[in-house]
């Protein structure tokens, strides 16, 4: 009953926030005109709605949903609410992959795949580093994540400064890195949506196996989990979701951290329910954050990462303080 209520509320909130995202913007457009624009009116409003606001709202929804699902996966496998793609260095790896792809002149549609490759390399490396001590704990993963995030960040700066192609668009690229859904074409959106869809299917299929990690890896193995294969599948799925999200919106922090954690209070711990709910909840959060980002200081735009950072960082700290007893 409670589960149904939560899902119904999420559905309503998703529709409302998407509508708000399309209706509100730097240019005031009457709701009636928005509707006719969506239906294909051939005028300036039509262009603004169809080529700017709609892809932007869809992009934000994809990014939020993907990051929240990825966060739920990582938290489940590490059995700790402190993990997400951002703090594990996965997002940083994805941003390096994306920046390299742009610097090397790849097709824009290929950027999500390059971001996926970067995310995969980063999370595989973090896991390997974290394993050096024997057991994979959230503490070692976070430490390895911090190191990798700095390293990838330095490489991104190096590429930005030394690439002629990027130097011309430095401002736009920096804005994207800070987390922004501003420049997105339908082509990029479609590619990212396909990648996210594959990731979501993987996440939902893997969810019951992640439940088995509740008492740690050894118990998961005793319950019948093939640790190597399952871990690899979870990391690859996380990288897919993160890669697509970063390709669209750069480094958006904390959505993957906060959403699954908050939903756990409402829906309990089992991961299939949690992941399925995380997708609309993450989408809502980022559509609203993006709405805030482009209206708070209008006509100037804030990177959406600023909003999620302002809300998410204190939340992360509170979580860290509360759970330091069990962090290792």
């Amino acid at each position, binding site marked *: 009953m409670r589960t149904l209520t939560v899902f119904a509320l999420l559905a309503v909130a998703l529709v409302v926030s998407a509508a708000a995202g399309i209706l509100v913007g730097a240019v005031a457009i009457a709701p009636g005109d928005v509707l006719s624009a969506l239906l294909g009116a051939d005028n300036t409003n039509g262009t603004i709605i169809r080529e700017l606001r709609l892809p932007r709202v869809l992009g934000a929804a994809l990014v939020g949903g993907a990051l929240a699902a990825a966060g739920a996966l990582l938290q489940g496998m590490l059995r700790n609410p402190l993990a997400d793609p951002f703090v594990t260095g996965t997002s940083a790896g994805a941003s390096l992959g994306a920046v390299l792809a742009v610097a090397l002149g790849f097709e824009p549609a290929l950027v999500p795949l390059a971001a996926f490759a970067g995310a995969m390399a980063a999370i595989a490396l973090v896991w390997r580093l974290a394993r050096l001590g024997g057991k994979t704990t959230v503490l070692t993963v976070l430490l390895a994540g911090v190191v990798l995030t700095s390293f990838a960040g330095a490489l991104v700066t190096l590429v930005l400064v030394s690439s002629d192609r990027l130097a011309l668009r430095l401002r736009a690229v920096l804005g994207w890195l800070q987390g922004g859904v501003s420049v997105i074409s339908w082509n990029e959106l479609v590619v990212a949506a396909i990648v996210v869809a594959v990731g979501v299917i993987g996440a939902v299929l893997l969810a019951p196996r992640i439940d088995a990690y509740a008492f740690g890896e050894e118990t998961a193995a005793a319950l*019948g989990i093939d640790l190597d294969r399952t871990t690899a599948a979870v990391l690859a799925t996380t990288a897919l979701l993160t890669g697509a999200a970063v390709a669209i919106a750069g480094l958006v922090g904390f959505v993957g951290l906060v959403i699954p954690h908050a939903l756990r209070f409402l829906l309990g711990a089992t991961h299939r329910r949690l992941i399925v709910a995380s997708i609309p909840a993450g989408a809502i959060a980022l559509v609203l954050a993006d709405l805030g980002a482009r209206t708070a200081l209008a006509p100037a735009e804030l990177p959406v990462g600023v909003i999620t950072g302002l809300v998410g960082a204190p939340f992360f700290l509170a979580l860290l303080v509360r759970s330091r007893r069990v962090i290792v």
Partner: protein
Amino acid sequence: MSSVVARGIRAGYQEREVLRDVDLAAHAGELVALIGPNGAGKSTLLRVLGGLLRPSSGDVTIDGIDIAALDRRRIARHIAVVPQVFETLFPFTVREIVALGRTSRLGPLGTLGAEDARAVERALDDIGAADLADRRIDRISGGERQRAVLAMALAQEAGVLLLDEPTAHLDPAHQRATLDRVATLARVRGLAVVAVLHDLNLAAAFASRVVLLADGAVIRDGDVGDVITPQLIKEVFGAGLRVVAHDGRPFVIPEPASIGERRARAG
């Protein structure tokens, strides 16, 4: 009716060999207690039996099948391990935890069927945890959590049950209740049970057979009265433990050091 048999086990971690040529068997209906000092290799042996640590030589068979030839899923259908750590930060309900015992029977889409749901309810009933089913695992007492993970292992419906110090964090009443339950299950369900026990008196009270391990080797394997003897206990655990007989059962009583010993130590 299952049995687990380990032969000629050598195993360890990296450079350090912990087990040196160990044989151990547990048959249907038996509760075999694994006793020995810290570092004797009891937990390592249990990991080998559960297929969680590959021995460098020797083999483990269940009903004659070498587990090295089975994947994790198949092993989990034959051998259940009761975890020693049963803390989680996530708000799973007890029923959800017990359902984890069915992980090895998940369908291709990761779903459980009606038979799995029945196994979960049966395990909850068997362990007397049905009233806990909808409680959150992070909000019940240590003893209740212990029952929940025991029910989880039972839901696996494996013929072999392995327990690593199942009574470690329990008060005496819960220690007794847990082992009584496990011994009964072994008898009634025909499970082959191996339990690492630190408390020699619990081993003496509930085990159908005792295996004394020291320094990675089996010192003695036999009936309670043949293993927990004054001579063997002194040999393996050192002085200071008195073994007395009561009700036809050995009791191990720790003795304070004598005045002479204390003086000698103080030098």
